[in-house]
């Protein structure tokens, strides 16, 4: 192969050190957005440049990497990032949540419980939870500094006023360590409780916005709500059509142009594990296994 010789995990060591310093600061101040000198990556913004830089900075030769996009190991984005690190770092890759030491994710937290020693790296498009109502960055920073978070409830208030309930279903704001309000990236709010008191380290990288933030292991993460409109998880009220799971987050899949649809686990690894253990759903005959894996 005539490919140019890259440094381990693509980024040069100076850059990785800079990013690690930002990560350490982020861990020291849970939920606080640490600015960092985000680099150009060989992929467009919106494809996870922030998550990739964080992963590159923490990856060691012994790590086992899993990459998911919307819960799935086999979408274009997940496959290309996994291949990117397989080629530039030569690390082992896996689709099994339990086997991975570093999991880079877009929009989901795996269903299988994470354990100590694992690192979950989130790709973040817009890190600022107050942006929706306050466009001035100088002002949002001051609000974080002073802990002025009344505005966050204004957004939830608007939801209830308009829809009768808190309709925000993803990027649902949380308060980390009883201090900073944080945007958990566009994960469905179904996943919010998994962030609380999680044994794994959670790192968030926003490439375009040049911010890194973190939730250290076993940190309290509370979803914002009102006393009379408490936070609730949300999932389609159906079992997975493939594995029969009734506790996992489901994707709705339109199967033809007649309006037929089915609900399947968004976490492909979780679903396959259950099927391997003999769990079956109503559509188990569907040729799920035919979908190729990277």
């Amino acid at each position, binding site marked *: 192969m005539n490919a140019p010789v890259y440094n381990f995990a693509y980024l040069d060591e100076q850059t990785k050190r800079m990013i690690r310093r930002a990560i350490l600061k982020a861990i020291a101040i849970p939920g606080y957005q640490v600015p960092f000198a985000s680099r150009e990556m060989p992929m467009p913004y919106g494809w996870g440049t922030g998550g990739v830089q964080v992963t590159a900075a923490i990856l060691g030769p012994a790590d086992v990497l899993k990459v998911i996009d919307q819960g799935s190991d086999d979408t274009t984005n997940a496959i290309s990032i996994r291949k990117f690190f397989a080629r530039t770092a030569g690390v082992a890759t896996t689709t099994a949540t339990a086997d991975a030491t570093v999991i880079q994710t877009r929009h989901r937290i795996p269903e299988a419980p994470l354990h100590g020693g694992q690192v979950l790296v989130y790709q973040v498009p817009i890190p600022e939870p107050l942006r929706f*109502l306050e466009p001035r960055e100088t002002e949002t920073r001051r609000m974080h500094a*002073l802990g*002025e978070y009344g*505005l966050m409830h204004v957004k939830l208030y608007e939801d209830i*006023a308009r829809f009768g309930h808190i309709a925000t279903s993803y990027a649902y704001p949380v308060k980390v360590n009883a201090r900073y309000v944080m945007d958990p990236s566009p994960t469905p709010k179904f996943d919010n409780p998994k962030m609380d008191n999680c044994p794994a380290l959670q790192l968030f990288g926003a490439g375009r916005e040049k911010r890194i933030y973190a939730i250290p292991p076993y940190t309290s993460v509370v979803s914002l709500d*009102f006393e*009379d409109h408490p936070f609730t998880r949300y999932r389609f009220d159906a079992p997975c059509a493939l594995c029969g799971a009734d506790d996992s987050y489901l994707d709705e899949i339109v199967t033809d142009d007649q309006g037929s649809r089915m609900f399947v686990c968004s976490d492909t690894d979780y679903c396959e594990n259950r099927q391997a253990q003999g769990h079956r759903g109503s559509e188990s005959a569907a040729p799920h296994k035919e979908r190729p894996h990277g």
Partner: protein
Amino acid sequence: MADSKIAVQDNDQPLLLADGLGKSYGRLSACRDVSFALYPGEVLAIVGESGSGKSTLLQLLSAQLSPSAGKVSYRMRDGVMRDLAALGEAERRFLLRTDWGYVHQDPVLGLRMAVSAGANVGERLMAVGWNHYGRIRDTATSWLERVEIDVGRIDDAPRTYSGGMRQRLQIARNLVTEPRLVFMDEPTGGLDVSVQARLLDLMRNLVSELGLAAIVVTHDLAVARLLSHRVMVMKGGRVIETGLTDQVLDDPREPYTQLLVSSILPA
């Protein structure tokens, strides 16, 4: 005659004290040597034409601008008189959204135009920790009623409101935390005359019912007469005349005040 004036509460302790207050930009002095005491429930009008320094003074008094000379003290809710310059930023901002109100001439500056009227009123409550949607909404509803906004419009954003409604919404948004002092910067500027009259009447009633102290900057002497107990006339950055509103307007002493008063068109 000013016998229609709202009552001043008997209270011996001033709420706000300005002492030798001044602001200069290099050699240009925007406002200088202003001293006065404002008591609870008292409405003070600062009048003067554009460039007289009245807006600068309002910003100094409301701690949005730091003075080049002198100081402003404010009696906090615990009764302690504090120098505003010595307050931390968090304390100052807390004051601004709880014990103070600030009504801008342009309601766009004082409202969140893309957020519903209910949330605009409720924001200050949520900012001080109210966490019950039903109670926040009930309070917002009753405030919309008080400022004569159809409660059927509670979920509409103020960008769909008329100028007068926006101004009334801004007032409700400010008063919901029951502040003791409200700053108003030309509150009726830019409104039609008929809308102005309604707004003035509303403000006058609210100020008197709530026992609010207010500092109103206006170039309109009719606004000063209707709303204020006391008036300060500014010219060239200085206070040139001060006294009871009807005294200053009916018996002006300074040449400039006489000019101002004589410039009013007969009603």
